[in-house]
């Protein structure tokens, strides 16, 4: 099969799906589902890779796939019992197969050092099994015939098709036509066996015989080729005209009489097994990689669609506002219609976001492999468990999570989980446990990486931070603040360069990546027991419910999801603390008030605190606080426009939106503002700037 560039793309795309199915099946097998359905699925995936790869002459890939396939075949037909060792090798071979596909895609040479050991392991299971019968191909062409080599001999072909000839879709007329194309041909038909009455005639009975004389042939091979499929469905004689018996006749070209090879039989048995399992397979089919039920879509189209839907929602908002200002009489119905419009827009928006949302499962599966490799490289024994694989996240978020998650998993295995002996000495299981979980929580996705390892060594972290000048020697730091030092740029606890963290990539890169996604990372750790990292990401990147506020004449937006309550404070509720700070007393508790205008670098307002509105903020990772703003207006759905791409990060701002009147309103990031109280900001306080910022221009 010849193939060109676009075919390669199709092939590699298909390989992605096949590897996904393969990984899914292998994971199920590892978790204990060793039923024939699951093993079959894995077998089929490898088989399909092999089948398609053959077209591209990817010999290493085909060869490896073939051996894998054979082992899987033996397993599914139960010639090989599935034990831990075989399971492990199968997992590894899944990884190698994926690698071979990658090297083929990148057109790089095969990494034999990696491939050969696994190949050898696979072959060890096949041991003394008889050689496959695969090399035997029945081909009329390969039959040697020492006939005269000169051109111009006439051959006589006698053939009588039997009933099966006809029912197998063959047509004598076509055979004859093909023979006629080989050279000048004379055809005679023998009708002698036809019955006299038409009603006694059955077309299938094979009552007709033909004899053909074909001139000008160098050998009988072209003739035999024409009969390649039907040699046993007819009585066939091919001989040279006027020859003597010195040259052997090719009578019925028969299949050699070899006993059916055991593997072939079992392959047939396997196939029979396939058919009876069909129902079970249909029932169990979760439709995850069925070509017929999914669409491949150009991501750019989805992006354009999402933008358009965003505009639609703004447009609806604009119309709504204008209508309100227009003071039209009898608008009750109109507003009802507008509400419908709003609902429909929302539906479309959710639908489109859902298109882009994908389960995190493939990402988590990749992490399984990363964890395996990391454990091998560091000599740790680790089990990675995943939870919530079906949780759906926007596609772009998944792509950008891959690197941070990889870092964190490697970190957890390298630095978190202790060596097996140390663990046993500490009374823990030899095998460490690493849990990767995803769940949705009120407008956000939470991803957790939890290990039961050594936990964070806070005194040491603090020490290192001091030695690197990240904190003052005498700074008073809470546990959380110490934990977050891990994310400071330039911080790295690795005293030795290990196999994994050789490049000294620190957790600050992880933090940047997560923040760029509009998310947060929180750490929770107990020394000696383990550490949990929680990543919180906004659920949709595009639309958010916001509170429109006035801050020093500027219109801005605060996400509703973080506002607990809005308060117009009275003097009695307020207390001064320190020089510049005010506390709000609410329900018996004291909550710090943050002057948002000041945080945003505005000229200090002259308004009295009692003349302002306080927004009580509560989020996962910061204690309660209240943001002081000048006025609040209405609540509105806003489309979030990121400024990342064009500008960069602005501390305290998570994006911008375009209001109905076309003006831009910046969106406040309450958590970042609240965290402005943290030590990191304090130590970076220079030139009167409270928080560091990142700007692109």
């Amino acid at each position, binding site marked *: 099969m010849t193939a060109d560039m676009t075919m390669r793309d199709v092939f590699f795309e298909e390989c992605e799906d096949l590897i996904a199915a393969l990984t899914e099946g292998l994971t199920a097998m590892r978790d204990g589902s060793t039923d024939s359905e699951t093993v079959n699925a894995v077998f089929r995936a490898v088989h399909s890779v092999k089948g398609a790869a053959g077209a591209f002459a990817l010999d290493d890939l085909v060869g490896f796939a073939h051996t894998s396939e054979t082992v899987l075949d033996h397993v599914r037909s139960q010639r090989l019992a599935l034990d831990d060792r075989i399971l492990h090798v199968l997992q590894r071979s899944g990884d190698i197969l994926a690698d071979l596909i990658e090297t083929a895609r990148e057109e790089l040479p095969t990494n034999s050092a990696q491939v050969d050991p696994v190949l050898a392991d696979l072959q060890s299971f096949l041991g003394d099994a008889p050689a496959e019968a695969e090399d035997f191909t029945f081909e009329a062409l390969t039959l040697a015939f020492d006939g005269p080599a000169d051109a111009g001999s006439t051959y006589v072909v006698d053939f009588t098709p039997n009933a099966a000839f006809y029912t197998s879709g063959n047509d004598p007329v076509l055979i004859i036509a093909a023979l006629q194309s080989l050279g000048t041909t004379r055809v005679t038909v023998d009708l002698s066996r036809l019955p006299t009455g038409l009603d006694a005639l059955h077309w299938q009975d094979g009552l007709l015989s033909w004899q053909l004389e074909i001139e000008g042939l160098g050998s009988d091979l072209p003739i035999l080729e024409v009969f390649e499929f039907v040699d046993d469905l007819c009585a066939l004689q091919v001989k040279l005209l006027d020859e003597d018996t010195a040259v052997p006749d090719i009578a019925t070209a028969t299949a050699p009489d070899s006993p059916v090879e055991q593997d072939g039989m079992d392959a047939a048995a396997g196939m029979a097994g396939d058919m009876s399992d069909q129902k079970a397979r249909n029932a169990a089919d979760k439709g995850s990689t069925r070509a017929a039920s999914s669409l491949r879509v150009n991501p750019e189209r989805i992006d354009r669609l999402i933008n358009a839907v965003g505009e639609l929602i703004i447009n609806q908002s604009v119309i709504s506002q204008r209508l309100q200002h227009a003071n039209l009489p009898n608008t009750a119905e109109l507003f009802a219609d507008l509400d419908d419009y709003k609902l429909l827009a929302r539906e479309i928006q959710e639908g489109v976001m859902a298109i882009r949302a994908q389960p995190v499962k493939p990402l988590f599966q990749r992490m399984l492999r990363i964890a395996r490799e990391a454990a091998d490289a560091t000599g740790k024994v680790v089990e990675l468990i995943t939870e919530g694989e079906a949780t759906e996240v926007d596609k772009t978020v998944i792509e950008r999570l891959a690197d941070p998650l990889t870092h964190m998993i490697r970190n957890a295995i390298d630095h978190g989980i202790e060596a097996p002996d140390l663990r046993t000495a500490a009374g823990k299981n030899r095998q460490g446990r690493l849990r990767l979980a995803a769940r949705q929580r009120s407008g956000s996705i939470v991803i957790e990486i939890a290990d039961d390892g050594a936990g964070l060594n806070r005194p040491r972290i603090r020490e290192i931070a001091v030695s690197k000048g990240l904190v003052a020697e005498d700074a008073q730091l809470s546990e959380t603040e110490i934990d977050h030092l891990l994310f400071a740029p330039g911080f790295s606890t690795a005293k030795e360069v290990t196999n994994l963290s050789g490049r000294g990539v620190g957790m600050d890169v992880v933090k940047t990546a997560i923040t760029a996604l509009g998310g947060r990372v929180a750490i929770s750790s107990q020394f000696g027991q383990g550490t949990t990292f929680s990543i919180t990401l906004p659920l949709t990147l595009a639309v958010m419910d916001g509170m429109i506020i006035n801050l020093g004449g500027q219109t801005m937006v605060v996400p509703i999801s973080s506002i607990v309550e809005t308060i117009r404070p009275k003097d009695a509720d307020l207390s001064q603390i320190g020089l510049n700070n005010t506390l709000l007393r609410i329900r018996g508790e004291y909550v710090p008030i943050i002057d948002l205008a000041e945080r945003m670098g505005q000229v200090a307002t002259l308004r009295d605190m009692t003349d302002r509105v306080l927004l009580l903020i509560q989020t996962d990772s910061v204690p309660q606080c209240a943001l002081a703003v000048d006025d609040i207006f209405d609540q509105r759905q806003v489309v979030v426009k990121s*400024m990342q791409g064009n500008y960069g990060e*602005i501390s305290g701002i998570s994006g911008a939106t375009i209001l109905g009147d076309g003006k831009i309103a910046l969106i406040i990031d309450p958590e970042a503002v609240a965290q402005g109280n943290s030590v990191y900001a304090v130590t970076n306080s220079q030139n009167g700037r409270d928080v560091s*910022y*990142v700007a692109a221009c």
Partner: protein
Amino acid sequence: MSQLAELQKSERLEFVTLVAGGQNFCIEITQIREIRRWTPVTVLPHSPDHVLGVINLRGAVIPIIDLAAKLGFAKIMPTERHVIIIIAVEDRIIGLLVESVSEILGVDSHTVRETPRGPEDTTTRAILGIIPLGDDMTKIISLSALLAPASQVAA
């Protein structure tokens, strides 16, 4: 290959000439998306002097930079008569505030000269070459040198 050499690969080049900080500059035309009149910006908190704010460009939020200030000259006090040049560089869309835009200048690439060596300052770092124009000359702005990479912690 230097940016200048890259430019000179084409035979004919087109530039938009402009005035900023009282001097003549030009920008290669393929980097320019659009030219607009000045419109009020939304201020960004904690932004450097040369960043004026952001504007709404058909639904996208675009930062506007004072080109003169960025090059080290005095800030421009923008009015309706000033012009914003929307440029695209490395996937980022940004607006440059300039005093005025003169014309589209088409030249054979060999007329483009290297910047004469002299003491380096903020301005010369952002110039990738010059084009003689009668008695005067216009300086070609290197947009990538002008704009810092997307993430850089400020001191």
